[in-house]
C-alpha cells in the first residue's frame, strides 16, 4: 500500500531537485526508454531509509561528475506502481530490487546496482561506483 504522498514528496524532490526526471506512468517510462542512443540512468527510488537514504544522496553526488548520463530518470517503487512495473519490464532478467540503479548505453543495460549493493554503504561509496561507470561510458561534455 502506498505511503502518504506528503511523506514521500521530500524523497521524490531529493532526486528531482538534482535534475532527475520523474516518471509517474507507464507511458512516461516507455517514452524515456524509447530513446536508444547515448547513455541513460534509471533510478528505482524507494521509501526505506535503510538503503534509499544512502542511494539518493549518492546519486546527487554522482550527478555532479563532469561525465554523466545524457538522461536521468526515476520511478518510485511502492508509490507509482504502474510506472515501476513498466520500468522493471526493461530489466527483465534482473530480480526486482528497490532502491536500485540501472545504467543503459545505447539502449542496453550495462550496469546495475541492486539494493544489497547499497545497504550499509554511505553516499560517497554509492557515488564512487556510479562515477566510475560514468567515466567509463559517458563522453566528456563539449565545451562552449
Amino acid at each position, binding site marked *: 500500500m502506498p505511503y502518504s504522498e506528503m511523506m514521500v514528496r*521530500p*524523497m521524490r524532490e*531529493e532526486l528531482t531537485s538534482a535534475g532527475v526526471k520523474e516518471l509517474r506512468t507507464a507511458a512516461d517510462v516507455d517514452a524515456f526508454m524509447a530513446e536508444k542512443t547515448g547513455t541513460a540512468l534509471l533510478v528505482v527510488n524507494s*521509501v*526505506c*531509509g*535503510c*538503503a*534509499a*537514504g544512502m542511494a*539518493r544522496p549518492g546519486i546527487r553526488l554522482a550527478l555532479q561528475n563532469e561525465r554523466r548520463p545524457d538522461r536521468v530518470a526515476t520511478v518510485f517503487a511502492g508509490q507509482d506502481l504502474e510506472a515501476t512495473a513498466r520500468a522493471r519490464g526493461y530489466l527483465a*532478467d*534482473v*530480480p526486482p*530490487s528497490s532502491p536500485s540503479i540501472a545504467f543503459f548505453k545505447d539502449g542496453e543495460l550495462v550496469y*546495475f546496482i*541492486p*539494493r*544489497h*549493493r*547499497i*545497504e*550499509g*554503504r554511505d553516499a560517497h561509496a554509492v557515488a564512487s561506483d556510479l562515477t566510475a561507470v560514468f567515466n567509463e561510458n559517458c563522453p566528456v561534455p563539449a565545451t562552449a
Partner: protein
Amino acid sequence: MGTFHQGKGELHGITVVVDTDGPEIFVGRCDDVTDRGVFLHDVDVHSDGENGRSKEDYVKRAAQLGVWKKYDHLVIPNERVTSIRRLGEI
C-alpha cells in the same frame, strides 16, 4: 532522508544470506533476529545441488544481481541457522 525503524537489530533492512544445518540456504531482507529465529522478507531459498549448483555457487550468483523471491515472509528457527552474512559483502 528516509524512513527509520526503531527497536530493530543491526541487520534490519539488510539483505542477508542465512545458511542452515540442512541443504537449504536462504536469501532475503532481514526484518529482525529474535529468540524465535531470523525473520526475512522477500525470500528465496536454494537447496544444495539444485540445478547443479552448490550453496556457494548460488550465493555467488545471488550476490551479482539479487534473487527472485519465492516467499513474501519466512521465519528460520535459530536452531537451524549456522551463519548469517550480508549479501552485499559477498
